[in-house]
């Protein structure tokens, strides 16, 4: 191929990708920088005000009782959601990996909530988790009473302190199919010889999973933990749909939205968003680095 043609193509490839790179540069990195600037400003009200405020917005958040509630709620949500989704996804994948009839049907069934919006999930679960008691009992509580499982009845997301765990239940419903799919792909990638060799050595099914499969699935578990963990830091729509904007179920994403667009405390809203970004970056940057690194080694 001629040198001229090669240069022309190289030039063309750069021209064609430039708009996308510029868009990423401006709309992601430029805007993050802009948000950082807002977070260091005194902007409060409809009109932009970039007068310097130092770290005051961040410092105030550390003394803000609402933000403390948010952090506590995020920790509860993350704990219940991530552990629940990983364990459930793992068990579903192991069951489906046994070569049963109807595997495809169950797999599709466990995954369908992934296609639905968090808003839809939230609206439906809000009625399932209706906390009304006595003659107005309904939703899952009513179902429990039909099944004579009354001891399971509870106030769901209106439970003091632990209400977030109920929201996490709806999130587990939505996302466990995803971890199932990750684990199923991981299990299918394990060579069958390994399993057979262990069986010949007299290992039972449980031992095979305990000593061979689970350690080999460690990279899958790690990705699942990181992906789910960063999702739970960002949780927003699901809570809005189940509970609206209620203080007991507040999280940083809702606080940011409300304080910025309802309260017009732009400086504070931007500070919350940057703290959110940092917490996500701590999880995601090493993950991207690790994934691309192992990719080039292969």
């Amino acid at each position, binding site marked *: 191929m001629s040198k001229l043609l090669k240069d022309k193509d190289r030039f063309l490839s750069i021209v064609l990708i430039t708009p996308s790179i510029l868009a990423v540069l401006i709309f992601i990195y430029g805007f993050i920088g802009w948000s950082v600037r807002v977070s260091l400003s005194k902007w409060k009200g409809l009109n932009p005000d970039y007068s310097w405020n130092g770290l005051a917005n961040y410092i105030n958040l550390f003394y803000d009782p609402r933000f403390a509630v948010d952090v506590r709620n995020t920790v509860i949500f993350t704990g219940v959601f991530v552990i629940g989704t990983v364990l459930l996804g793992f068990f579903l994948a192991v069951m489906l990996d046994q070569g049963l009839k109807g595997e495809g049907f169950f797999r599709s069934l466990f995954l369908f909530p992934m296609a639905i919006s968090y808003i839809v999930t939230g609206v439906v679960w809000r009625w399932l988790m209706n906390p009304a008691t006595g003659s107005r009992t309904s939703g899952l509580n009513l179902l429990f009473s039909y099944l004579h499982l009354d001891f399971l009845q509870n106030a769901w997301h209106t439970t003091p302190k632990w209400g977030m765990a109920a929201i996490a239940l709806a999130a587990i419903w939505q996302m466990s199919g995803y971890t199932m799919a990750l684990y199923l792909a991981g299990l299918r990638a394990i060579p069958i010889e390994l399993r057979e060799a262990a069986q010949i050595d007299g290992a039972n099914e449980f031992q095979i999973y305990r000593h061979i499969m689970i350690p080999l699935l460690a990279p899958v578990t790690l990705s699942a933990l990181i992906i789910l963990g960063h999702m739970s830091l960002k949780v927003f729509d699901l809570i809005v749909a189940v509970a609206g904007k209620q203080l007991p179920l507040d999280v940083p994403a809702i606080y940011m939205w409300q304080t910025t667009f309802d309260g017009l405390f732009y400086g504070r809203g931007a500070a919350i968003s940057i703290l959110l*970004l940092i917490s996500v970056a701590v999880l995601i940057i090493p993950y991207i680095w690790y994934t691309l690194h192992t990719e080039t080694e292969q």
Partner: protein
Amino acid sequence: MKKTSRLGKYWLYLPLIAMAIFYLIPLYVMLVTGFKSFAEVDLKTMWNLPSGIHFDNYIEAYSKLAPSLWNSFAMVIPAALLSSALGSLNGFILAKWKFRGADAIFPFILFGMFIPYQSILIPLVQFMNAVGIKGLPGLALAHIIYGIPITTLTFRNYYASLPQELLEAAKIDGADMLKIYRYILLPLSAPSFVVVLIWQFTSAWNDFLFAVVLTGNKQWPITVALNNMAGSQIIAWNVQMAGSLLAALPPLLIYIFLGRYFLRGLLAGSLKG
């Protein structure tokens, strides 16, 4: 690999069916409530089957949500098409036409798909207001731009898996870059286009955060309209259930008919595609 006894295996259906019920409960309530007549709707009998098939709730929900359903379609379709086209072009260049530094910028593009969008939200709203792109076009633009990372990733991984010889032969024949893309790569890209189109359609359809800050009353897409309907005291829960089904239906139908491709998009989103 035949170790577990037959009986041992059949036991597995018990937990599987129990889990199937867990996943179906919300769907059951949505469907059953939707098909009840207004007269038989009562929270106390919410688990009962309807006496017959009635469409009261769906008609009522549709009359309330129809404009926003069409808003969603009008915004999602161009957004999905354009971001897929961009992703394909970017993926081609980053996989097969690497310029110096191409590998270095890729992680920076990728990071964009994980950021909490709150961290760009204030500038985004300011920017849209400043340039005067309001409502649905602005929302579509946001989905196109913030879709670039995942669409680029999916196409890049797919094109990288194609053998380099495919291009070399064409190069020897004197084909330039655009010809190679147009006549060799593009015809092979249909499966990836399906994956990416589905992914972008679903995520733009299901989005709430961008929609709620970028659109007003008349231009609300379905998620915002549904959420506001659920938050109001006037609209009964049965209509909300029917509305939820209407909002869930387009992505759900795609999932039912093209589930395989949906799954691939899902795995790509965790960088595992």
